[in-house]
């Protein structure tokens, strides 16, 4: 099968399941960066991220035989990554971060609203990027995960909920808090 840019992730994964190794190459090329960044920014350590990254892809390779299209491939892939990350949390500190157990957070009315002005005004883009990475690192793990999943894989709220194993409202709440905090942090930078 000749894989190209228009072939969907699901078709590629089915091709790989049926023995097409080249399909996996295409899939890997599409998602390796997002998964790696998701893992690195969640665990905060590149070495650990590389280890987790390899485990995630190896799990995908092993699970190829039972793969059936039930959702978007990215949902399936990031669910593997999320599970591996939870395992890492448990192995490291014995339990997952508390934010994963919270249904939500404070009322959204208390969250600082984003400024209406252009965030790039008054600061260069590189500085803003470093700032946002600092802000992301400071987010609770669950909110950070929701934000990273949205940014790296273009997941909807429902898909984020599905990948992280929570209901839609919880995923939506986490995402909103994450965005609000990031905007607040960017306002301070400005």
């Amino acid at each position, binding site marked *: 099968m000749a894989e190209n840019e228009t072939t969907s992730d699901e078709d590629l994964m089915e091709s790989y399941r049926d023995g097409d190794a080249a399909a996996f190459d295409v899939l890997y090329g599409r998602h390796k960066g997002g998964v790696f960044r998701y893992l690195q920014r969640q665990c905060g350590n590149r070495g650990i991220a590389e280890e987790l990254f390899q485990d995630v892809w190896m799990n995908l390779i092993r699970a190829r035989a039972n793969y059936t299209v039930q959702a978007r491939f990215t949902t399936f892939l990031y669910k593997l990554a999320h599970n591996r990350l939870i395992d890492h949390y448990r192995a490291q500190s014995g339990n997952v971060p508390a934010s994963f157990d919270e249904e939500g957070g404070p009322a959204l009315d208390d969250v600082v*609203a*984003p400024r209406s002005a252009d*965030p790039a005004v008054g600061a260069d883009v590189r500085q803003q990027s470093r700032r946002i990475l600092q802000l992301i690192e400071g987010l609770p793990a669950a909110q950070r995960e929701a934000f990273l999943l949205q*940014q790296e894989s273009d997941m*909807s709220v429902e898909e984020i909920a599905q990948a992280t194993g929570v209901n839609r409202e919880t995923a939506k709440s986490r995402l909103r808090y994450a965005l609000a905090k990031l905007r607040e942090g960017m306002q301070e930078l400005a």
Partner: protein
Amino acid sequence: MSESVHNDTGHDPELTAIYRAAPADAPPPALDAAILAAARREVSARPRPAGFTFRSLRAPLSIAAVLLLSVSLVTLMREEAPEITGPPRVDLPSAESSKLKVDRHANDPAESASVREEQRPKNLGLKPPQSATASGLGVRGSQFAESMPRSNKDAVAAKPEADAAPPMAFAKRREAAQDVDELRDKKAAVSKQAAASVERQGNAAEPETRRAFSQPPAAAAPSKEMAAGMAQPAAPAVSAVVAGAPAENKTQAGSTGAAADRVEPAPRLRAQSGDAPVRQLGEAPSTFAPSPPQAKPSAPAAAPVPALGKLERSADLAPGKWLEHIEELRKQGRLDEARVSLLEFRKRYPDYRLPYSLSDLAKP
């Protein structure tokens, strides 16, 4: 508050732009190569998806398992079918239980008989005869038992003749057996009478009788009878004596023949008893009509022979019936026969508890 924050997608284009402007970290190329190599190895090592073997064989294995189970069940049911449909298979009744039941019903013959019939199939648990070994070919159970080894005789003697037959057939066969028993009784009585008459006429016919009995058995026994399987050389002598009785005894002998005509051809016996002189009997054995096995008692031994015949026949009875027979003998004053029969009974059933009424007979 910004509209973008409140929409359902949760996207904030401004933050997305800033995030994507950040340096894009990527896995090292070595890690990429390792993962891609692992993916290729996995495909080449297992061209078919894992679990293919089990999934593809699931249906055949299930069918094979169901078939195996079915065959096993059918085989098992066939093996157990006779035990299910037939009478319950239990061990032969112990002497104790038999004693208890017989004692309980010993005073009431009818009740004891019904109890015995009730117990027969259950206690013996013998299967109904598949062939006509004991009934279908007209062979009595006692005759069948006689042809068996001694070890089996007791069991066969204890076994009712139609223990597992249907109730109607069993009743009919029992009636037939009773008829034959009555016939035997009559024949035995006739033989006794004939023997008595011979003794009474012994002096008158002594020369002829002695001549008849002085013949060696091989010479006395007619060749036809021997060829017909008559193993009793004295049997023709009995007929000879009966036939050689004087005229006043001919009537009695005739009645003997009349009584026996149910068993043997009556005209021939009458012809012999009426026409053949005693002299000719010993000289011309070929004129003898073959006497049936039932008419085998010889004249000199006529007195004990009926008793022995009764003993043999009693041995065919069930223990309770046998004891009733002994009781009847005792009531009729035939104490010797009763004692002999009781002795035989004790030999056959040493553990069988005797009723109190027969205890005096058992004493030496």
